[in-house]
């Protein structure tokens, strides 16, 4: 994808972000941004700059997460929490339609989009890639498309990546290159701001800004480079998807199954995992029914159940399905990997299973055999 910078970079004071948030609210956007919630940084409705987790940082390890305070009041001094855009564009519970029985037949009431568009603050490169992927997955889905159409995105360049991040391996970060309306790079004193769309340009009309100096551009480069260098985790994509197709019967899958909790956390926090199930609920009198689509996961035992059998009864096969889908099938399906290297599945796995290490183990044990 191409860089889509709209004009020369600017610098703004940090407080000016508050003006932008207010302005977006005034224009009718539902502004969503990072905010502290239960010892984590989640994405939630925000109305003012004070709602942002100013000064917070996060420590993420395999199966562990904690917050700490920076010495400086950074606005984006942390990396991704468990939430991603999918929570808003493909909500966990999506009502599809309601049915009212009539004497002959039934009346269908489709839940049309009626909200105001979302404006997302602080979205990172990995999640923008995930958004791009969801756009492909839900290309024909009317509910997703309705939510997606008018969104506004203020992205940030990720300069505090976590220990579980590996976006450089997936070529999806830490630098934001596309898919934003506004892009921030956080300096100690101010933000470097780049504009990616006409919408973005309109949003900063009343905001005090000045043209960025050449040194600022260099500073941004430097921050991104050191951020990139600080990311130690890697995922070796060499030979994918063929490698995994060759390894369906690798005994290592059974080893993972011993540790795998089948709890579904990895798929729920994954910004691209889209699997869902639609079900009917009906009133006792049978006169009304509602069809609801909710997040599901290939880790649920009945996910591949058909009449007469289950295609994936074992944990071994379910983990294999997840990893193979993410890293291999996805490439056949959509032309890109389903993994954006955000590391959420590693942080939020209660059993501490690390997709990068498991792939490595499959690779090595495959070679040995």
């Amino acid at each position, binding site marked *: 994808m191409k860089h889509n910078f709209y004009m020369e970079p600017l610098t703004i004071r940090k407080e000016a972000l508050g003006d932008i948030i207010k302005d977006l609210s005034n224009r009718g956007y539902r502004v969503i941004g990072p905010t502290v919630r239960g010892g984590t940084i989640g994405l939630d409705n925000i109305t003012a700059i004070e709602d942002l987790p100013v000064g917070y940082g996060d420590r993420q390890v395999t199966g562990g997460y904690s917050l700490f305070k920076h010495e400086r009041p950074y606005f984006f001094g942390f990396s991704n929490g468990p939430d991603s855009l999918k929570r808003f564009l493909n909500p966990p519970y999506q009502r599809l339609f309601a049915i009212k029985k009539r004497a002959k037949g039934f009346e269908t009431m489709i839940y049309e989009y009626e909200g105001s568009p979302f404006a997302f603050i602080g979205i990172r490169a990995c999640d923008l890639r995930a958004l791009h992927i969801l756009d492909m997955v839900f290309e024909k889905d009317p509910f997703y498309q309705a939510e997606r159409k008018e969104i506004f995105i203020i992205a940030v360049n990720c300069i505090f990546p976590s220990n579980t991040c590996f976006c450089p391996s997936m070529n999806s970060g830490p630098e934001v290159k596309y898919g934003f309306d506004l892009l921030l790079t956080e300096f100690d004193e101010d933000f470097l701001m780049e504009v990616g769309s006409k919408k973005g340009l309109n949003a900063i009309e009343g905001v005090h800004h000045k043209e960025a100096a050449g040194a600022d551009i260099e500073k941004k480069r430097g921050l991104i480079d050191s951020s990139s260098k600080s990311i130690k985790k890697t995922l070796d994509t060499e030979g994918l998807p063929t490698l995994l197709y060759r390894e369906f019967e690798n005994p290592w899958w059974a080893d993972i199954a011993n540790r795998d909790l089948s709890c*579904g956390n990895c798929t729920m926090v994954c910004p691209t995992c889209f699997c869902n199930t639609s079900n009917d609920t009906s009133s006792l009198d049978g006169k009304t029914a509602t069809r609801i689509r909710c*997040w599901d996961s290939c880790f649920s035992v*009945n996910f591949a159940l058909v009449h007469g059998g289950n295609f994936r009864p074992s944990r071994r096969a379910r983990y294999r399905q997840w990893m193979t889908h993410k890293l291999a099938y996805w490439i056949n399906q959509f032309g890109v990997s389903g993994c954006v290297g955000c590391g959420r599945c590693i942080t939020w796995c209660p059993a501490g299973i690390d997709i990068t290490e498991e792939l490595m183990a499959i690779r090595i044990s495959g070679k040995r055999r």
Partner: protein
Amino acid sequence: MDKPRLAVFKFTSCDGCQLSIPDMERGLVDIANTFDIAYFLGLKSRKSTGYYGISLVEGSISTPDEIKRIRAIRENTHYLVTIGACATAGGLQALRNLKDLGAFKKAVYPKPEHIDALKDSLPISHYVHVDFELWGCPISREGLLEVLASFLRERRPNIQAYSVCFECKRKGTPCVLVAQGIPCLGPITRTGCGAICPSYGRDCYGCFGPSEDPNIKSLSLRFETLGLSKDEIKLRLAGINSYAFGKYHGKE
């Protein structure tokens, strides 16, 4: 068309599950309009015997008399549903299965010889065929309504058996295990409660029983890294659904 006959029975239990019916507020009226509530000692004085379309059974089997009663109920029931942890997994009182009943009797009653109790408190399914098991201590009202609605529409209840984590993550509740190191049973516990406990910043204690494919061994290892002793981990599993978790525990 005749309304299907509904019966509610209580065995060894706390009444909490059957009382989710009056707790349904308007739902109670809906149930009374759709079903002929033929037998429900807790709410209704007239006892109508005969064949029941659907029987909701609360409580575990813990006395010799209860074995006789449940067999008779099964004979007279088309679709038998257990409601709650007692009926589905023996309940909290199944903790006695792990100990000596004689000592338990002595510890509690001044005249233990008067106490007529079976050695084990066991789920209904141990004695008779059960058509559907609704887990939970207590069951959720939504779950019970779904069971009743699905019975009326002749379809399988849309009730899932995967982990509490599914629900927790959908609700956007921060994970107490990963973010706070609290030994939460969510990853191996069946969904259905609405993932309430983690949303209160505390651990799931497994009141909906084991999930469909619980990896107890793996979660136990994680608990060990949090500093729990082997005995403490055993206690975690020996709670409301001790009998059900114990079945898996033996295997792993």
